[in-house]
């Protein structure tokens, strides 16, 4: 109990204290990423008007959202965790029934001027819920399988709904994000091994249930030249553009493939290609390093938190963000099947940006409340 009393003796001092506690280095890193995004979108739109300025405005809004969210009481978020989860799940069900169908999938919910992609929100809500569950863990009972059942169900419900949309990429990301929170919470390793083996056995059955376009993506990935002007066209063009970037790049606004519009979806999914064609491997690797730094900073916040809820929350969001980055960049290099996943903070698009900033708002909140003794007394 001595440690607990020590913690209580050092409460954060009101709203001013919270603002002072904000990790401004983290904010700076995000701004640096957004600046890279501005440059990339500038070249994709051949000027600032088309994409870059609009995206900068959105980032500013996202920054305000993030800082506002950081000041909310962390304990309040924890207590609301399952309500947030239920709300996001309801939105997912809603999108399945009434969602806007784009490119053969129901993913978007149109609320007046706002387009919402509930699967993005869902991943964050899932992390919050799982973190709340494991932070309240009664560790004496924790060994029982019944204790693991609710969180596993909480992961599988949205995963299945997202699969049905259908959006294979996001479903897999959701699954991995949920699993990593479980891992960090201390669930035994052999359980993961068992789950992985089950998944491997189920893969052929799942393949049989995939949509034609999803199978095409997997097949195109295995043989990119199979269908050079159908699904393979994007990847092929992207690889040509990357290749012509070389070590040092073709220079700002001098990327021939990207700027000359050979590259489809260059402002969204293939924005990294735009970047790497113009700035070469050096520029691409630098951007990768910057993204990795943001992930590392999030990890540092997680490790520096004194309560289990905050730790798990920050870690889950870090994993979510890095999976985004990984899937997108691997996709444009033709290393994994095309998944329609944007590059966070760089790609053009409001919905993805706001959800990413929402997640970072939670991370910032964890940082601000890192010394709060949230976790209930243990037996």
């Amino acid at each position: 109990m001595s440690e607990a009393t020590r913690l209580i003796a050092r409460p954060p001092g009101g709203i001013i204290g919270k603002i002072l506690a904000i990790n401004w280095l983290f904010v700076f890193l995000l701004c640096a990423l957004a600046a890279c995004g501005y440059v990339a979108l500038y070249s994709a739109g051949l000027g600032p008007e088309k994409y870059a300025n609009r995206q900068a405005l959105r980032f500013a809004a996202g920054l305000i959202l993030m800082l506002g969210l950081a000041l909310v009481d962390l304990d309040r978020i924890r207590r609301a965790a399952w309500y947030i989860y239920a709300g996001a799940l309801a939105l997912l069900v809603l999108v399945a029934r009434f969602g806007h169908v784009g490119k053969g999938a129901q993913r978007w919910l149109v609320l007046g001027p706002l387009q919402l992609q509930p699967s993005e929100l869902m991943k964050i809500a899932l992390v919050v819920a799982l973190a709340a569950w494991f932070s309240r863990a009664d560790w004496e009972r924790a060994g029982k399988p019944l204790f693991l059942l609710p969180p596993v169900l909480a992961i599988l419900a949205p995963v299945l709904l997202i699969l049905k949309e259908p959006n294979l990429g996001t479903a897999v990301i959701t699954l991995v994000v949920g699993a990593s929170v479980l891992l960090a919470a201390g669930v035994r390793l052999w359980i993961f091994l068992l789950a992985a083996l089950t998944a491997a056995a189920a893969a052929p059955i799942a393949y049989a249930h995939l949509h034609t376009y999803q199978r095409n993506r997997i097949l195109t990935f295995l043989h990119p030249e199979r269908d050079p002007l159908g699904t393979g066209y994007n990847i092929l063009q992207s690889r040509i553009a990357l290749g012509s970037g070389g070590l040092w790049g073709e220079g700002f606004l001098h990327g021939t493939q990207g700027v000359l519009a050979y590259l489809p979806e260059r402002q969204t999914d293939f924005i990294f290609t735009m970047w790497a064609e113009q700035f070469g491997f050096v520029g691409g690797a630098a951007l990768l390093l910057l993204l990795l730094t943001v992930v590392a900073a999030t990890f540092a916040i997680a490790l520096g938190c004194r309560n289990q809820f905050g730790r798990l929350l920050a870690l889950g969001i870090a994993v979510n963000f890095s999976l985004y980055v990984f899937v997108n960049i691997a996709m444009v290099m033709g290393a994994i099947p095309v998944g329609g996943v944007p590059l966070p903070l760089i790609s053009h698009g409001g919905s993805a940006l706001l959800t990413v900033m929402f997640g970072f708002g939670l991370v910032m909140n964890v940082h601000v409340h890192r010394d709060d003794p949230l976790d209930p007394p243990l037996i």
Partner: protein
Amino acid sequence: MRRFRNPREIRATFTRRAALIGAAELAGFALLAGRLYQVQVRQGHHFARLVRGNRITSRLIAPNRGLILDRFGVTLAGNRQNWRALLMVEETANATATLDRFQQVLPLTAEERAHIDRAIVRHQRFIPVLVKDFLDWDEMAALEANTPELPGIVIDIGTTRLYPFGAGLAHQIGYVAPPNPREVAADPLLALPGIRVGRAGIEQVHEATLRGRPGQLRLEVSPVGRVVRELDRQDGIPGPDITLTLDAALQQSVLGHIADQSASAVVMDCTNGEVLAMASNPGFDPTLFDSGVSQAQWHAWVTDPRTPLVNKPCAGLYAPGSTFKPAVALAALEAGTLHPTDIVTCPGYYDVGNARFHCWKKGGHGPLNLRGAIAQSCDVFFYETARRAGMDHIAALAHTLGLGVKLPIEQPNVPAGLIPTPEWRRRHGHHWNLGDTIVAGIGQGYIQVTPLQLATYVARIASGRAIQPHLTRAIGPTMQPGAAATDWPALPTSDTFLKEIRAGMWSVVNQPGGTAPLARLDLPGVTMAGKTGSAQVRRVSRWVREHTNFDSANLPWQFRPHALFIAFAPYDAPRYALGLVIEHGNEGPQTAAPIARAIMTDTLTRDPANRPPSRLAANIPP
């Protein structure tokens, strides 16, 4: 899960696990960086060789359309080479200037030019635009000589569809035409110059198969649009050839027999439903649709009373007339309300309430059993039979035999036709009268069937199997199911009754007093069974019938009844079935029977079902 004793241990576990996850992420990013290095720097030299300013462009290669062959490998739809000039939009700095210079070499009409300009704007840059096709040698030479002034212009060999049998198979094979903008929007590959889309018949039904998959050519192009070098090439995959069940030679001879009629004839292998000939006369020239049909030609087609554009065997709807009588008889037999030995006496008329229905034979046939009634096509016998069977039984049996149902033939827009039922009349707000059943007994009234249905119907009676008519024998080297008799289930009707019906139909052709002596075959040891029919197209009032010397042959052509004939042969071992409709042919026995005899004689002599299908016999594609 292990038991934690204090927060410190929870945090320690978290830290260890977080380090594990962090290490995995680090590895992931390292992999990304490594891959990026490989793609940009190691493999990049493949592209880095490009002189600065050169670009790589992809050029699509249109696949060849699959051929359509008859069962013996004769080409029914082929491809002809066609030299044409294409504009590679992304290989020229200024498409407008190139086209202006092109016009100085080869003139284009204002309409053509506008079309090209639209295509340049509308299509993606890697899709070449067709500037002019069907180039002759002089035009090609002129273009070749001017190549330096025409950046982006490429002479290319494409294909045009060729139909060796022309109008004779136009309905069944269909034709191709350029895709419409809506289709191009759905599939940009259709914007490829020279791509054609099947618009009717087999060309439409098997479009997805015949089209094939396009290939791709990657080129390095200089800033002014010169092709510097070919980087790599994947040839398109041509659509597989489709082998039909049709026999082109038989089709030709069938067409010859109906050449001066507006008629349709379907010859089918009654053991398996393979359609051997499906003739629709008159036809149209299928190649006209490729280049565009002139207004005058179109007007001529649609105003022709002989309806050349209608695929009569599949889509022409006719009352079956007396050819429906075997179905009525079978319905009554199956329902148990008629016995093969029952005698009905025909006084020449049949009274129901206060309505009187006439037999075609004034004065009547006298007493007749079933065989005699089919042979002499006695109306009164079938009025009575229809009354006994009831319309619901008749309709159900007609459907079983393939009448009034949508047949799964590989042709677009096949109507189901109609066998009316009391329920159907009720749905349309009318009451069903007994008189409606009586009229249906002789195949008149609301009944509508197609010639293909008639052929299917007689084939099912002849074989006792629920065969379905089909046209596709093989796609590529793969035989399609349905070629063997055992692929088809037996009909749910009694064999004894079917034999009785067949015997009656034999008498129609071969016994004195039968209605179709003109259909009797002149082949040794082979006889044919059949049934005549005439379908009124205009009501003849009772007054006219009784008080004038009425003869429908004196009517204007378009008011004469249709002449119908259904037949199968050989009678002992049925193999071929025939459905024949001569529009406004007046009387079945006089007009249709001799044509049916000629067609069946040719079919039996040629015997296509027993000839080895040359290409498929070896089962190896050439």
